[in-house]
């Protein structure tokens, strides 16, 4: 039975119940135990807020967004389904879902490995779409898809965007399309009311950064370091300066990603003024390298909660 939970304080105790039942799953299949679940939630088919709106809401509450990233299909799509729910329940404000790709240039070894495992299992885009169709109505937070450009092109930009809109996706991040080449993407994204998030980096000159933030929708993705995705020991304090520069150029929310892997990092980046913090490889590693899907989901839950409390 699919039920959309509204994330208000009333339901916190319900969330705990749900998690206990989830951790007993042996098959990793999409399953909500109705035995322990008293239906106090309102059944609603309302869609969640978009990315920008989510940030606005959080801002009024004085909160910083927690944005986890996981790769679809690693270890398998049913675990991804569960993981999305776990992340949502543990307080993810936005979730980035990676579409596995054969040649992920922007990704380090952890996410590369996740993509390879996922593809080896036969994960394809249609399967991801089916999964999303089922699970998105159950989530209270919006999802942004993270995909490289070639799979989008292969489908056709218009078709791709309308298809993902149909399954309830709110945002899109494409790491290998530079600003110069985003015209078609932006046009189609606007048409389909998908927020196309653009990235700016420590090597981006200020003028270019301004053009990027101007064009970015949803939020501005600030890449924290020069390099590919992957946990790092610490976050460079250059990030603080960069956040400041971006905030001078725009009122759009800024989320920082790449390399952030610990509650300390999250707290630090939030303290520097970021509106959101993106955690990817650390999440992917927990899920993908666990002994079993259940162990992975449990570890994910614990980790996400620790990050969330760092933002409290």
């Amino acid at each position: 039975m699919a039920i959309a939970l509204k994330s208000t304080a009333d339901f916190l105790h319900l969330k705990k119940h749900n998690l206990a039942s989830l951790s007993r799953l042996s098959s990793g299949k999409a399953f909500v135990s109705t035995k322990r679940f008293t239906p106090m939630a309102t059944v609603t088919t309302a869609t969640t807020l978009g990315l920008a709106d989510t940030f606005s809401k959080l801002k009024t509450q004085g909160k910083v967004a927690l944005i986890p990233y996981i790769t679809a299909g690693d270890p398998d799509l049913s675990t991804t389904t569960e993981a999305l729910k776990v992340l949502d329940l543990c307080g993810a404000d936005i979730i980035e879902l990676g579409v596995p790709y054969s040649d992920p240039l922007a990704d380090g070894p952890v996410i590369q490995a996740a993509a390879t495992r996922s593809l080896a299992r036969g994960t394809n885009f249609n399967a991801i779409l089916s999964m999303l169709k089922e699970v998105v109505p159950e989530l209270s937070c919006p999802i942004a898809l993270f995909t490289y450009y070639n799979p989008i092109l292969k489908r056709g930009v218009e078709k791709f965007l309308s298809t993902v809109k149909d399954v309830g996706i709110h945002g899109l991040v494409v790491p290998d399309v530079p600003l110069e080449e985003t015209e078609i993407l932006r046009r189609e994204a606007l048409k389909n009311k998908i927020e196309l998030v653009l990235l700016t980096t420590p090597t981006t000159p200020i003028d270019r950064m301004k053009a990027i933030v101007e064009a970015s929708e949803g939020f501005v993705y600030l890449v924290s370091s020069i390099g590919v995705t992957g946990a790092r020991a610490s976050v460079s304090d250059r990030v603080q300066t960069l956040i400041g520069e971006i905030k001078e150029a725009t009122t759009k929310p800024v989320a920082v990603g790449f390399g952030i892997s610990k509650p300390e990092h999250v707290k630090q980046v939030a303290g520097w003024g970021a509106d959101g913090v993106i955690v990817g490889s650390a999440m992917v590693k927990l899920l993908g390298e666990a002994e079993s899907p259940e162990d992975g989901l449990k570890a994910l839950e614990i980790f996400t909660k620790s990050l969330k409390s760092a933002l409290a």
Partner: protein
Amino acid sequence: MACNIKALSLNHQILSGTTVERKMGTASAANVSVVPETVTKTLPASTTLTIKAPQPERLLIKTVDRKEINHGKFGRFGGKYVPETLMSCLGKLEAEFNLVLHDSEFQEELTTALRDYVGRETPLYFAQRLTDHYKNSRGEGPEIYLKREDLSHGGAHKINNAIAQAMIAKRMGRKTIVAATGAGQHGVATAAACAKLSLECTIFMGATDMEKQASNVLLMKLLGAKVESVEGAFKEASSQAIREWVGNLETSYYLTGTVVGPHPCPSMVREFQSVIGKETRRQAMEKWGGKPDVLVACIGSGSNALGLFHEFINDEDVRLIGVEAAGFGLDSGRHSATLARGDVGVYHGAMSYLLQDAEGQILGPHSIGVGLEYPGVGPEVSFLKETGRAEFHSATDQEAIDAYRRLCKLEGIFPALEASHALAFLEKLCPTLANGTKVVVNISGRGDKDSDIVFQYKPHSMT
């Protein structure tokens, strides 16, 4: 100027009173007199042809199209589809490239390196026995000339580009070079150039390729390079080299070996390889007082092909033929024929033809010529296909092996298996050509590295 029309290649005439334009055999902005002011040559069929030396300064930049310089586009192909982190670095590279094109000191240094270190100019060799092999019963057939890039230092054309880019890296103050290699030729060339210029060198190579071309791996190590094994083949090695580059932008320089990648990489490699075509034009003029009629080159990603073709792109009467690797056959699913069987997408930073599945995932290619195993192709090559300026065909593993053996027996030359694909196409091409047609085949590299593979080749088996 007196000429006997018979001495000229079929499609050309030189009008009296015209000064024949020549480009120097090396990077054109060089002010080096390699030949005297005027040359009088006696050509076959007792003709004399007087050629005046060209203007000394002929900038490379004039051969590059405006749209290409400004946007890195060849029609709809090309561009810079890379993570934002790389964009500013590419901008700097582009600026540096434009500088060196106009820098006569750089050009002179490059000319000297190409002559004394690389061993240029490479000969344009008339293959008498191969020519006879293709004569029909009436003794008619085309004339086959081989452009001997196999005689370059390192054994392939790769060094033309590697030395020039290593010089650029040094100019930019970079300390480390990062590169990926398939057959190992680009790896060897890069390692050699780095040793010469005292730069650190890391080469990424696919684990399977390292086994197949082990002698090249040893050479790279002896030349002082670190060789990093990457699970997979060339395409994985390329991706890994790019990731390494993204992570070390300030200190390292990514040395592309071929005409793929984000702008300015395809243009840079093409420009530095274009020395092949420039020499060929002059050599053709010296040998038969005209231009080649047909140019044939193998196509992996397109560096040796563009190196030969680019000079002649505006000569509509010169036919350009690229030969891709058909592996086990075009319909076998095991080949590298990107243009024949691929479609357009974005890969490794550029929009171009590529081999992909229905999802847009990049496929792993196969060819017995390891240097041809790349699921993409240079954007400029895609452009030549789309505009119809060049024709593209393919040759299977078996056909390449046969061509290797044929050249060994007929001319005593052992061509790289990659180049053997170009030679293989002669079997189909020559019977269609008029008598006396001048064909130039690019022997992009030497084949000692492949002797084991050829010797042990069994049809329909994995080598």
